[in-house]
């Protein structure tokens, strides 16, 4: 497992190196700035499997470095763990929005770090399989015009949409929130009614594009808030918003649908695919539910999003 650690403090680099070595990871490269890290990435013969980035560094900070790495196709899904001494939520939110998979608090506990790295190593192996699959799928699509299938209930990672993170990253994000951060959050589900039928009838790459365009429209609907979005499968998206003051209501849904109407997903046939959404009830953790941070992800999914009156049957006929 080849790991790149980036921190502007040489003591921190040394401690991280020792902790990783103690956990059995010896192929570790250290960089003391974002610029140096990009140099190491550009000049390495074999790609890195995991990145550990300090957030606060002079010059290019860890958040910018994370975003730059994510833009490289090779590192689109490589686990990136942020290391931070900063407990403020805006830094945590920014790190996940930039594409971080997890974060570790400074001062760090070497055992906790080892556990998180081994989880990241497992994710790295999965990511490599997914990338190989994606390359194969692209080649298949080029040869046959058909993309590779993904399950309707699969929470696939939607790449290249700002503030849209994988379900694993969302779980890690929620688990790292403090009690008070959780209590000052809200979440809500948006669902594409009839997605199962849509998914069954169209090319998988078109289904992916529909999900990606819908996620992008949802983020635009929440553009004035600190939020993160994840796709949980079955045409459902969960949005977690920081702050209780944000009003999430019918206007939010209208604004998202207006975006989708203005710029509807295009199928590979060139046809437009009109999408409507159903919004669940807003979940706002109380003193009893806040301790389980994952409620912010799971509770909105309990909402009754039955397709009655949502136009699902009509769409099923169209597709």
């Amino acid at each position, binding site marked *: 497992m080849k790991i790149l650690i980036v921190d502007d*403090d040489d003591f921190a680099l040394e*401690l991280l190196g020792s902790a990783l070595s103690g956990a059995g990871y010896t192929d570790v490269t250290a960089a003391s700035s974002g610029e140096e890290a990009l140099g190491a990435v550009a000049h390495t013969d074999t790609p890195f499997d995991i990145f550990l980035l300090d957030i606060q560094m002079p010059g290019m900070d860890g958040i910018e470095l994370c975003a730059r790495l994510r833009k490289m196709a090779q590192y689109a899904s490589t686990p990136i763990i942020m290391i931070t001494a900063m407990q403020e939520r805006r830094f945590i939110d920014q790190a996940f929005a930039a594409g971080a998979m997890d974060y570790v608090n400074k*001062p760090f506990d*070497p055992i906790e770090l080892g556990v998180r790295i081994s989880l990241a190593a497992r994710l790295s192996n999965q990511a490599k399989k997914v990338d190989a699959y994606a390359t194969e799928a692209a080649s298949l699509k080029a040869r046959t015009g058909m993309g590779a299938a993904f399950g309707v209930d699969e929470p696939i990672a939607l790449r290249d949409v700002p503030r849209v993170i994988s379900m694993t990253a969302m779980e890690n994000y929620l688990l790292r929130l403090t009690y008070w951060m959780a209590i000052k959050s809200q979440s809500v589900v948006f669902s594409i009614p009839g997605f199962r039928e849509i998914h069954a009838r169209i090319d998988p790459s078109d289904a992916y594009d529909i999900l990606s365009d819908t996620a992008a429209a949802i983020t635009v609907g929440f553009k004035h808030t600190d939020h993160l979005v994840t796709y949980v499968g079955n045409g459902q998206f969960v949005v977690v918003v920081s702050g209780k003051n944000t009003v999430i209501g019918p206007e939010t849904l209208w604004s998202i649908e207006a975006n989708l109407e203005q710029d509807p997903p295009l199928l590979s046939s060139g046809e437009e695919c009109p999408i409507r959404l159903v919004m669940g009830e807003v979940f706002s953790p109380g003193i009893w539910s806040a301790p389980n941070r994952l409620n912010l992800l799971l509770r909105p999914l309990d909402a009754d999003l039955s397709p009655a009156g949502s136009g699902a049957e009509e769409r099923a006929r169209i597709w």
Partner: protein
Amino acid sequence: MNDLSKNQSAFDLSIAAVRKKFADRAYEQSQQLDALLDRLETQPDDQHALQSVLQIAHRIAGVADTLGFGRLGELARNAENLTRTAIEVNTRDAIGATIQVTDTLIEELDQIGQDRPLDEVGG
């Protein structure tokens, strides 16, 4: 001994060397902070000096606890938080609070520098 205990032991061994180097540098950091406080006492809104205090405090806060310097870590975190506030609000009170906590941080750094075993002091 299970894997986790082995990892902890290996880490504890390597930490001793880093801890020594950190104690060696404590005096240097104390001198740097002292010079920055002198500047802030004559020119309280010197943003460059505040940023430098923030950077040093942040670095200390990031490693002190892991190296076993718990009180230093706590003081460094306080200094970091108060300095960040002073940079944001830029009031005399906030800068005064930064100077006060940084003074205590300097005392603790000096203590750590002095507490090195005699065979370490000579380098």
